[in-house]
């Protein structure tokens, strides 16, 4: 397909497209997306050009507030999904006037090139909107270039709505309108004695305006015609004929008809827009609720569960989810968070079709699947993480706006899944880097020190030997601590930490910590402060002892050699409080919020730690139902406070006797 320049259509004074350098660079391109199959070609074409130019591109869809057909909705959604998959930024604009809406979006996003399809002639639209879409775009675009692409006789912009199907007013509205007119006519006939037939005309006019507040344009039109006939037949002389003798009366009837039509149409359009605004508000409310739920979910399972719960609540439906596996295919068994169970192998085939072809598939499609579920691909910018199927028969997913809302839901779920996937990948990478670095450093020390030991040059220097052996031993201890840390972290992440509580003396706990860190604490003044009336507490002594040891070790690592460390314990009601303080430099204020993060290290610290110690502490404390906070003491130095809910028991030796 070749872009056709439409220079001849441009108003004078606008810059012409230069044929030698057709594309302005750096600024984004914009393509208008509609429901037609041709729109897809247009999207792909824009993508190619954007890629050549290395420019970003927007896909814009204009919602006109006019009802559309289900088929249109589905193919529109498909086109939007395609645009998203190809990397477009999707924007949905609203407005009756497509040209104006498109240009507004373009200006907001500093677009300097708009791609549209050459639409089929539509004289009514052109007359109502001051020219064809393309013509108007060309005239009103200012310094934005418009590229018009020849399509296969398909309008890519929102089509004129067809007055049938879901978009049309229900029969009920026609009946209501006709009945209202008949009742009004009876009323007027009864009061004919006091009212002039002109006043009765005004009554009918009032009724038409009133009706248009509640019914669509069709019923209003019918009501206008019907009332004009009745007015003429029953009230305008000569009575009981449709003929009008007086020219003034004829003029009145015609005027009446036009006024009724205009008033009715205007009111019903305002009403339609009002409904649209309300619908949009509702959509954004439920969407933001969904986004809220999704953002607090931090695992794939949690996202699926939250997503399905939201879909099910809103649409009163049941859902099935198949996630993509590592092999690039969807799982053969549905995700356990699903609320419906696929009842035939057809279901899976429909799901697979949706996944493979990246299109909704199943119940609503004309496809070959005899299922009652429609599967939507969980498609985000970079990947398809699976499909979500919604059982159509059970819920209220019939209307196109609900289908559209559902698609938005599915898209948000896909984005949340992508976010988790990316985060997991990043964490894995950090973990691998960290593990390999941390393991290699002490190994390098050991290897080089042992080779130095067997080196001829050091053979008769016992002092050098002692030094090297000391290095090897320190490196080995560090390696062992690393392995412990990695194991603890793995245990925490896999949920393998089991709490086994037993009665415990806090003094015992502190003593265990200090005894195990005897070597590290050699030269440090350590103060232990336990109130004399400290009760026994029920806790997992191994876990808590290790948490305390990690904090003390952290203090040893980050403070000067002779800085003191203070351990305190106390009870605040049912809560056991440990305070661990050191006399080091404390935390830089900007780091306090991050020190419990995995692999976080204070900037500019010496090598040797893993960045895991404190996150393990947090994990253990939280597994125990407690909380930990860190801060700086007023007098300088770091302070950790651990709060654990515990059962307490005061036992005196006399009682035990």
């Amino acid at each position, binding site marked *: 397909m070749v872009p056709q320049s439409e220079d001849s259509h441009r108003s004078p004074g606008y810059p012409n497209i230069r044929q030698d350098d057709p594309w302005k660079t750096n600024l984004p391109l914009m393509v208008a997306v509609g429901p037609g199959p041709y729109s897809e070609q247009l999207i792909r074409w824009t993508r190619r050009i954007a890629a050549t130019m290395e420019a970003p591109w927007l896909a814009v869809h204009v919602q006109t507030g006019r009802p559309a057909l289900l088929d249109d909705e589905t193919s529109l959604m498909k086109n939007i999904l395609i645009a998203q998959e190809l990397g477009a930024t999707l924007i949905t604009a609203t407005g009756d006037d497509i040209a104006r809406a498109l240009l507004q979006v373009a200006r907001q996003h500093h677009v300097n090139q708009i791609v549209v399809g050459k639409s089929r002639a539509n004289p009514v639209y052109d007359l109502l909107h001051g020219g064809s879409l393309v013509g108007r775009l060309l005239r009103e675009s200012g310094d934005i270039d418009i590229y018009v692409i020849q399509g296969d006789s398909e309008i890519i912009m929102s089509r004129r709505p067809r007055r049938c199907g879901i978009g049309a007013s229900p029969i009920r509205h026609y009946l209501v309108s006709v009945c209202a007119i008949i009742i009004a006519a009876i009323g007027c006939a009864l009061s004919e004695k006091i009212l002039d037939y002109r006043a009765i005309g005004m009554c009918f006019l009032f009724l038409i305006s009133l009706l248009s507040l509640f019914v669509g344009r069709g019923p209003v039109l019918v009501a206008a015609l019907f009332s004009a006939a009745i007015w003429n037949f029953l009230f305008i002389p000569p009575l009981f004929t449709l003929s009008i003798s007086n020219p003034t009366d004829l003029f009145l009837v015609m005027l009446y008809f036009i006024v009724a039509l205009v008033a009715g149409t205007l009111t019903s359009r305002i009403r339609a827009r009002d409904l649209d605004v309300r619908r949009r508000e509702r959509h954004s409310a439920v969407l933001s609720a969904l986004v809220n739920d999704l953002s607090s979910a931090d695992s794939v399972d949690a996202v699926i569960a939250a997503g399905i719960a939201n879909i099910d609540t809103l649409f009163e439906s049941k859902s099935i989810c198949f996630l993509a596996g590592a092999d690039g295919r969807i799982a053969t068994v549905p995700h356990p968070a699903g609320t419906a169970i696929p009842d035939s192998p057809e279901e899976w085939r429909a799901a697979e079709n949706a996944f493979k072809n990246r299109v909704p598939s199943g119940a609503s499609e004309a496809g070959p699947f005899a299922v009652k579920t429609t599967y939507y691909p969980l498609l985000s910018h970079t990947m398809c993480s699976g499909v979500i199927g919604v059982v159509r028969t059970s819920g209220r997913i019939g209307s196109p706006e609900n289908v559209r809302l559902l698609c938005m839901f599915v898209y948000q779920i896909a984005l949340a899944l992508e976010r988790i996937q990316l985060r997991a990948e990043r964490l894995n990478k950090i973990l691998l880097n960290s593990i390999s670095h941390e393991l290699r450093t002490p190994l390098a020390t050991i290897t080089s020190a042992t080779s130095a030991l067997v080196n001829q040059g050091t053979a008769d220097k016992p002092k050098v030997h002692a030094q090297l052996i000391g290095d090897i031993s320190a490196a*080995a201890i560090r390696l062992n601590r690393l392995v412990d840390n990695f194991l603890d972290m793995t245990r925490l992440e896999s949920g393998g930490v089991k709490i086994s509580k037993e009665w*415990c003396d806090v*003094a*015992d706990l502190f003593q265990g910590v200090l005894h195990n860190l005897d070597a590290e604490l050699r030269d440090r003044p350590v103060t232990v402060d336990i109130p004399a009336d400290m009760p026994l507490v029920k806790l997992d002594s191994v876990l808590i*002892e290790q948490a305390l040891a990690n904090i003390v070790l952290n203090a040893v690592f980050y403070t000067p050699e002779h800085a003191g460390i203070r351990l305190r314990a106390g009870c605040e009601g049912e809560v056991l409080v440990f305070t661990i303080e050191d006399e080091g430099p404390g935390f830089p204020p900007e780091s306090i919020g991050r020190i419990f993060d995995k692999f976080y290290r204070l900037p500019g610290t010496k090598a040797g730690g893993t960045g895991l110690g404190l996150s393990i502490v947090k994990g253990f404390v939280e597994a125990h139902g407690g909380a930990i906070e860190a801060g700086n003491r007023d007098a300088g130095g770091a302070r950790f406070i651990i709060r654990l809910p515990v059962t307490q028991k005061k036992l005196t*030796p006399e009682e035990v006797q």
Partner: protein
Amino acid sequence: VTGQTKILIVDDELSIRRILRLTLESNGFAIREAGNGKDGIYAAASEHPEVIVLDLGLPDMDGLDVLRKIREWSTVPIIILSVRNEEKEKVAALEAGADDYMTKPFGVNELIARLHVALRHKRSPQEEDQTFANGNLSVDLVNRIVKNGDAAVKLTATEYAVLLEFVRHAGKVLTHRHLMKEVWGPYREDETQYLRVYMAQLRKKLEINPAQPRIFLTESGVGYRMALIDDTVGI
């Protein structure tokens, strides 16, 4: 001190066996080695070792089963030397009859100290002892007089019973259940909160600094150990 004391090492790791052989032989021990559980049990019966150092992760059978097999007919001191560092494992091994438990990686000095403790128990049945001394603590076992330094300390009957259990097994890890069973009898084994109270009392009366005890040490999640303070332990 020990002469040619025969020690059996049951471990499948060749480098560990070699390091142990090198260091222990230079410290005056005679070494026998076994690379798996079956050989270990056989050597325990045929070589009459005075102490067995046993690994738990053996290629042919679990070390705990080796321990139980040997305990069926022998009271020879057994020290477990394993990479398994979970408290549950330690308690299980001690309750199956192990005398001590060390985790790998280990220090050879520590191992030699534990070997000496094990041998001391084997060679000097406590019943014949008159007095026991360890650091600032001394116990006259005949007259039931306990001293912290030079000052006599008054202990309740239960406190004395707990102390006596430590004296009998000085240097060894005693599990909570073991202490409960020996002092309070078999039906209150799980009510370890009493034990905590008594340990705090003993520390208050017998430690120089109860907040940082040197004699009655906590083995977290496992039990307690009376540490042997160098050069002062004697009868």
